[in-house]
């Protein structure tokens, strides 16, 4: 069992490869702060960006190097695979405009479509193909997680007045279409 500490020496977790990652934090993630790991499989962790970020922080040593607990976009037997990409911001920027009164406007459907097709779907397809265990650290039934929100937490609507399915929402729908059943404890089975 490895004790994880941050740059100030605070305990932030305990890790046992192939067994468990315990996240020590005042914040609690959906499904709780223990992530069960498998000695023979990669555990793919997903959710909204900020919840996944809480897990990602446990994969970074105090000196900023990576410890291998969380790898991005690749197999990590006994550990965790997460999605990390600078493309979300880049694609958002690509479909950004400013209206007459100086407010930022985004074409969320195009942003979502492009990120899903070029980044997220290939990542989740790889996880499905490997037979990874899945762990959701955001609630798949929380509307704020499965629809796009702005920086105040309010829903964003398209031109027809409909909420826009978030990337996490698309993952949930996609996994269900592939035969997965999402469980209340933050895992999924097929």
């Amino acid at each position, binding site marked *: 069992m490895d004790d994880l500490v941050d740059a100030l020496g605070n305990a932030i977790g305990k890790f046992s490869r192939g067994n468990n990652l315990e996240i020590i*934090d005042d*914040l*609690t993630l*959906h499904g709780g702060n223990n992530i069960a790991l498998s000695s023979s499989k990669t555990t793919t962790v997903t959710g909204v960006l*900020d919840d996944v970020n809480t897990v990602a922080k446990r994969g970074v040593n105090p000196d900023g190097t990576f410890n291998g607990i969380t790898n991005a976009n690749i197999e990590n037997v006994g550990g965790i695979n997460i999605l990390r990409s600078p493309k979300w911001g880049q694609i958002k920027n690509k479909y950004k405009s400013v209206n007459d009164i100086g407010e930022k406007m985004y074409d969320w459907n195009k942003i979502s479509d492009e990120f899903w097709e070029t980044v997220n779907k290939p990542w989740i397809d790889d996880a499905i193909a490997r037979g990874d265990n899945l762990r959701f650290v955001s609630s798949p039934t929380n509307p704020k997680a499965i629809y796009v*929100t702005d920086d*105040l937490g309010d829903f964003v609507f398209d031109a027809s007045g409909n909420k826009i399915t978030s990337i996490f929402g698309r993952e949930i729908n996609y996994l269900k279409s592939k035969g997965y059943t999402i469980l209340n404890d933050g895992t999924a089975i097929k």
Partner: protein
Amino acid sequence: MYNPQTFFNIKTLEVVLSNYNWPCTYILKEIGAGNISLQFPKCTIVFSEGFESKMNAYFLNSETKIGDKSASFQINDAVKILKPIKEKELGFKNPIGLKRFLDDEPSEEKVKEGLNNICILLQTYLLSCILGDFSWLDEVVS
């Protein structure tokens, strides 16, 4: 692995908080993984820098009493519940200065703007929580 630079620290939070009047005294504490707790006598708020400098704030499960296994209750979640109630109060004033879409790139400025958003929401809708009143959560939890 893409690991964007972080910008949130206790000094930045201290400066932003000092721009607002709070109903009681508070202390700030670095609590691990880059998170900082804002501790009022009857309410603790945890500030956390999310992906690419998006700022989030949460209540402690031990204070909201929503249970150890439930996901922490975010400030934005609380605003959703209390906003319709507060807006009916006599003399309610709509908040000014909120920024709906912050920069895409992580930066210290984005952290400050995110913290300002949170402070404005706390001041407008959640002062009762700061004073320790979480009774509005009873219905949500049940």
